[in-house]
């Protein structure tokens, strides 16, 4: 399996994707903004097809669209991003725009599926280097702001009054989220990045209750999904995204079961 360069690239990419999903996922789940994350990944799809349309790289288009939306949402207050109606409006609009840009560009529709659902074959050395570079920048930023992000995410009301520049911290978080989505969408696709950012962290919180352990377990669940998914995809030739979502769903199912059993014993 590792004879193929693209498999080696994909497995290496998996490590970095799992790391950033570990940190960001725990914060996303704490803020209860899973669905905003979903919208942001659709905005990412739209951005990628815009990039294709313009003839610049899809990643650049994605970064442009997702960061701009993150800043706008951050400025208008994160509540907007949690409101059901605004989520539907944005999801619909950006999905539509994505399709428009793709049909305007000369690319084949297979390109759309590769942006939406990702593809391991799509990863080459230069993709991998961009991914590693952006991941490292993300991780360093998260480390430097870790305490502020944690307070802001886990205790929004407390932080609003007792943390300086709290609103700025929220905006930075959303930009980091936009970056995470753009970076990871290359491998799992913009629609399914949602899975890696929300399910591992949602499962981890049933098993452990300290911040450090939650992040570690979330990384482990994400890495398990990506690596095992890649392996199974290699064996069967079925799409990686399917395996990743299936594995993460099983992990979540086990977590819920664990929680039920724990409660029954109390």
């Amino acid at each position, binding site marked *: 399996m590792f004879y193929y360069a693209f498999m080696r690239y994909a497995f290496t990419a998996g490590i970095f994707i799992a790391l950033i999903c570990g940190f960001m996922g725990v914060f996303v789940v704490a803020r209860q903004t899973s669905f905003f994350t979903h919208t942001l990944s659709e905005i990412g799809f739209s951005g990628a097809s815009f990039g294709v349309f313009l003839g610049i790289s899809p990643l650049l288009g994605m970064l442009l669209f997702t960061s701009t939306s993150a800043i706008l949402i951050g400025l208008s207050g994160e509540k907007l991003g949690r409101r059901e109606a605004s989520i539907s409006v944005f999801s619909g609009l950006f999905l539509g725009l994505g399709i428009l840009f793709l049909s305007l560009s000369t690319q084949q529709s297979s390109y759309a599926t590769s942006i939406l659902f990702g593809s391991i074959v799509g990863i080459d050395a230069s993709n991998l280097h961009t991914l590693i570079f952006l991941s490292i920048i993300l991780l360093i930023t998260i*480390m430097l702001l*870790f*305490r*502020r992000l944690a307070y802001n995410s886990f205790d*929004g009301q407390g932080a609003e009054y007792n943390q300086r520049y709290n609103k700025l911290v929220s905006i930075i978080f959303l930009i980091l989220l936009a970056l995470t989505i753009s970076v990871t969408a290359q491998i799992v696709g913009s629609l399914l990045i949602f899975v890696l950012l929300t399910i591992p962290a949602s499962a981890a919180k049933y098993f452990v*209750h300290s911040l450090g352990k939650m992040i570690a377990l979330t990384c482990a669940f994400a890495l398990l999904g990506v690596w095992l998914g890649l392996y199974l995809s290699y064996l069967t030739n079925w799409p990686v995204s399917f395996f990743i979502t299936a594995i993460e769903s099983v992990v979540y199912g086990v977590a819920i079961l664990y929680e039920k059993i724990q409660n029954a014993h109390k």
Partner: protein
Amino acid sequence: MDSILKVTNLNLEIPNRTLFKNLKFEIPAHKLTCVTGENGVGKTTLIKHLLQDLDNHFTQHVQFSIQRDQIQYVPQLRNIDDEFPLSIHDFVSLGFKKRILPWNSPQMKTTLTQILTETNLSNIEKQPLGRSSGGEKQRAYLAQALCANPELLILDEATASLDVISKHELLKLLKKIMATRGLTIIFITHDPDLIEQYADYELHLSNQSGTLLKKEGLD
């Protein structure tokens, strides 16, 4: 009287309504002052306004004798549902804000242990906050605020959802901590029992103004 906050000639308006006109009062230092008044009189709005003025360095009407960092505000509503995953220990640690590195220094660990003991949370520190009782949650909010080593604590209706026993426990704890740490406490409340038993002063807000009354609170 040694005061921590002095308000003079403050006018406060919200859309379509004047909440306060020429409001004037002082908050005595190292005492527990209960802020009382009818629902909708603007207790919370007033406190938030005072903090905002301090944030924006508007000192014309509102003068604090301390810095913003030395004030901790414990809001009435917090987004803590049954599934809130963090342990009490980790939730309280969120209150340490001066450090950049993600992990706690040995000195912070010592401080944290001390605060958890002070607030009677040591034996349940590993419990998820979402699973904790109302009284335990309030003690955790208090403990988190203490991590910032404040001079002034402002609690907004901290006892609103508590049963009688937990209410009195919390107030006794507050008065003990106030004495040992030399804190000043502002406590927004409706509860006449608590005011009678524990308040050193009462700031009663009504008719767009406020009156400070001295009380005989227990120590």
